[in-house]
């Protein structure tokens, strides 16, 4: 127990380093970066929904760097086929056999850019891989590398030429966040950097050095799962969920998968906060990010998050 605790302390400091170095690249977004770290620790996939040019790709890239993970980026376009993502079997004339050519999905961190621009067919291929942690091609099942994260970005659904993800698939993402505009101070620094940096700040991300390795990440994930949860908090989670299910104004209630996601994300948040037990604040912090995209399929992110916040204000933390 003691050993684990000591390890935790060391590792948790690492998490702060990660946060610090990513926020060097993505300015003024500490809160969002923390959520992303939380998502990674909870072994979940992340969906970033925002307008183009808000730094979605930069964020993903920076994370791949600092975590020391193999990284691939796929730009989802309307003509992207599942095979382009997963890989194909090609006939090798010399060996007279089919050999499998791995697609870009065989990586540790996949940045799926503009996921809602591609056809539902390709979307579901990705989402299936996300859920199963494996790819089935030509009747053969191929496992994906460990760990496997997907950071998907999408444009607001109102934009033309989009195939909005159905609810069932949105559910696969542990969190959905919105980066939003940087504040004035951050914007100023970005503008100033334009003068000093030659290749813009996307180039800067490449310079980030890995802070933790895969083993350390897995330890952290394990520790996050070991955060203890009291009955009082399980009651709280259940109250939140049943409120979302009972309330008519909420499109669809939170599924059991959603409640599991909420709890594991909250546990990861507790770990980030250097605790080995959960507090209601942890749940409240991650709640909008984890829940907003699960409670109604349509509508703007802001509106959905408002609904999530509404749930929080309606459900008592301590008793029913």
């Amino acid at each position, binding site marked *: 127990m003691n050993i684990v605790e000591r390890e935790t302390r060391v590792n948790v400091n690492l998490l702060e380093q990660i946060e610090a170095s990513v926020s060097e690249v993505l300015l003024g977004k500490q809160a969002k970066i923390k959520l992303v770290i939380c998502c990674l620790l909870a072994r979940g996939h992340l969906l970033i929904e925002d307008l183009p040019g808000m730094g979605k790709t930069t964020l993903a890239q920076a994370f791949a760097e600092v975590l020391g993970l193999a990284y691939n980026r796929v730009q989802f376009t309307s003509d992207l086929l599942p095979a382009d993502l997963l890989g194909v079997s090609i006939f090798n004339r010399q060996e007279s056999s089919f050999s499998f050519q791995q697609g870009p999905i065989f990586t540790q961190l996949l940045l799926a850019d503009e996921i809602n621009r591609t056809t539902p067919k390709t979307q579901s291929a990705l989402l299936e891989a996300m859920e199963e942690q494996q790819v089935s091609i030509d009747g053969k099942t191929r496992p994906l590398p460990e760990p496997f994260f997907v950071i998907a970005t999408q444009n607001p659904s109102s934009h033309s030429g989009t195939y909005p993800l159905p609810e069932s698939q949105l559910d696969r993402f542990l969190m959905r966040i919105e980066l939003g505009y940087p504040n004035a101070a951050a914007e100023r620094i970005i503008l100033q950097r334009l003068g000093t940096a030659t290749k813009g700040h996307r180039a800067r991300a490449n310079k980030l050095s890995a802070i933790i390795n895969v083993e350390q990440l897995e330890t952290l994930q394990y520790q996050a799962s070991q955060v*203890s949860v*009291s009955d*009082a*908090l399980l009651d709280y989670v259940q109250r939140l969920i049943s409120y979302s299910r009972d309330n008519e104004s909420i499109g669809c209630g939170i599924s059991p998968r959603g409640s599991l996601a909420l709890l594991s994300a909250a546990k990861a948040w507790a770990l980030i906060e250097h605790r*080995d*037990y*959960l*507090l*209601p*604040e942890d749940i*409240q912090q991650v709640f909008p990010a984890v829940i907003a995209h699960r409670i109604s399929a349509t509508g703007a992110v802001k509106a959905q998050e408002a609904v999530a916040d509404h749930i*929080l*204000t*309606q*459900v*008592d*933390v*301590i*008793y029913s």
Partner: protein
Amino acid sequence: MLIARQKNNQWYWLGGGLAMAIIPLWAELPGWLLPFVIAIYLWRLIYPQHLARQGKWIKLLVVTVSVMLLSVSIGSIFSLQGFVGLLVLASSLKLIELETRRDYLLMVFLGCLISACQLLFYNSVLSFGYTLCSLLILHTALLQMFINSESAQSVKQRLLASILKVTIIFLQALPIAIILFIVMPRIGSIWTVPINSNVAKTGVTDSLTAGDIGQLNQDFSVAMRITFSSSAQPSVSQMYWRGMSLAAFDGKTWRRVPEAAPLSDKLRNKLQKVTERTAGPLYRYQIMQEATGRPWLYSLSTPIVRNREIVQGQDYSLSRHSPLQRRFQYEVTSAADFIDNTPLGHEQYLRYTQLPGAGNPQTRAFAQQLKQRLGSTQNIIDFLTEQYQHGFSYTLSPGKLSTENPIDDFLFNTKRGYCEHFASSSAFLLRAAGVPARIATGYQGGQWSTDHQYLLVTQAQAHAWVEFWDEQSGWVRWDPTAVVAPERISRGTSEFLLLDGRAQDIAALFRKNSWVRNWQLQWDGLNYQWHRWVLGYNSQLQFQFVKKLLGAVDSWRIGLLILLVLGLVIAPLMIKSSRKSGTRQTDPVIKLCHKLDKKMAKLQLHREPQETLSRFLSRAAIEQPSLAVALRSIAADLEKLLYYPTSSSSAEIATVAANIKKLKYR
């Protein structure tokens, strides 16, 4: 189909309850009514729907005819019997057109009322129990109307469940009813009502004829019950419950002479003084006399009573102004050694030596002989005692005596008889010898209840004895029967009967069996307590009892008592139900949070639902800086209890609870 069956079920309950209510009344009602009611029941049972469809005129005819019949056979419709008869008739006739729900409910009420009316005629424990049973059935009929009529339960199950439910309600209501009965003030009759006036006249009569009855009937019904409140008690053989004296004799029958004057005040005061002193044999006792339909009462010798309803005659006998139509209870004090030797006046002397002009010449001659030979009264008595001891025997079936000279026949011929024979002949003999004498009637002896609480006197213990005048000692009791058959006195009549060997009475035979006898005594004990505490519970007894129970008779004490009993009855019900609903917070920590929220609300600080404890309390700490330290520590402790992985100990909870309590608001 199902509905029809259910309706039928309800009907069975109602019919059963009504029948139960009516049956005990049959003896009080005209003979034709019972067959009439049975006929209607049967008709209804066989053709459930047929009766209702009869024409209006037929119904009206039946009603008119039966009511007229009733009034003719009872005499007056405005008597108690008439009232009850009408109720029974109405309930039975209503059965004809029992259709709607309202009819059904009305019938239940009618049944309850009839059931209650039974108590106007009978008031034993059994009758009351019976009435409760029929009320239970009628209430079950009521319940049938208001429960689920679903088919999941079988009919039998449902019946059992409803009986159980009503029984539970009755059992819960009983303690409350008992308390109400004990404490609710009694007020007298609000208006006069026709009273049930046909109480059979039983017990000792005011005349005595020796020898006209061949065989004495043994009646073991209760005459009275006596409780002694003084420690001094006479032995059973010395208990002569004197009713009245019979002074007038016409040759065959002794009769009571109506007393012209009551006991003189002078003597009364003298007696009063005697009863006030502490020394000497002084008996205080309470007599509960069964209804006799006659006015006179019984007591030991020289009694004194403080009851204004009771008058005392010159011969010290007690009587009431009105006949006893119901059980009557009275307190008596007797001074056994009181001597009233006020010389007899001339008139009195004549009265007590009066004899008819002729008849029984042999006895008269014998008496003259005795007077001349023996002289003093005491010698005559001693001689007679000796005579009785030899040659005379006691029997309950002596056979008839000659109608001409019955006393001659008895004294010189048959020499067999019971108390009346001995008393009558002795008194005649004494009078013939010039000694003033009279016959006293009443009861002799009694039987102690098993717990020695009270003495039971039955009609079989009716007795007659002689009183003669002595110049020194006044009136002296002399019981010739005791001389002839001392067992009769020491053991009681019933045992004597067995000794007599002529017992034909099966009931008497049963008395040989000790457990039957025991059981009977126990049963009588119960009846006695019932009469004493329930039927005889009047406002005087109530005052005493409530005072003993509560210390004083205040309305607040009484109210408190009622509330207490109500609470005791209701508490189990409420606890059971609150457990069932299961909404109560059972976690002590959650309860603490509730408490804290309430406390903070008094400080005008309300926690938002989404606000966690630490955030809320730090906000509170800012608004109430004086409490900041306490609030922070409470927040830390509570969060620890709520969310830390270690299990919370009761000590910690107690600490936090104490801290919350300590929060003072200004």
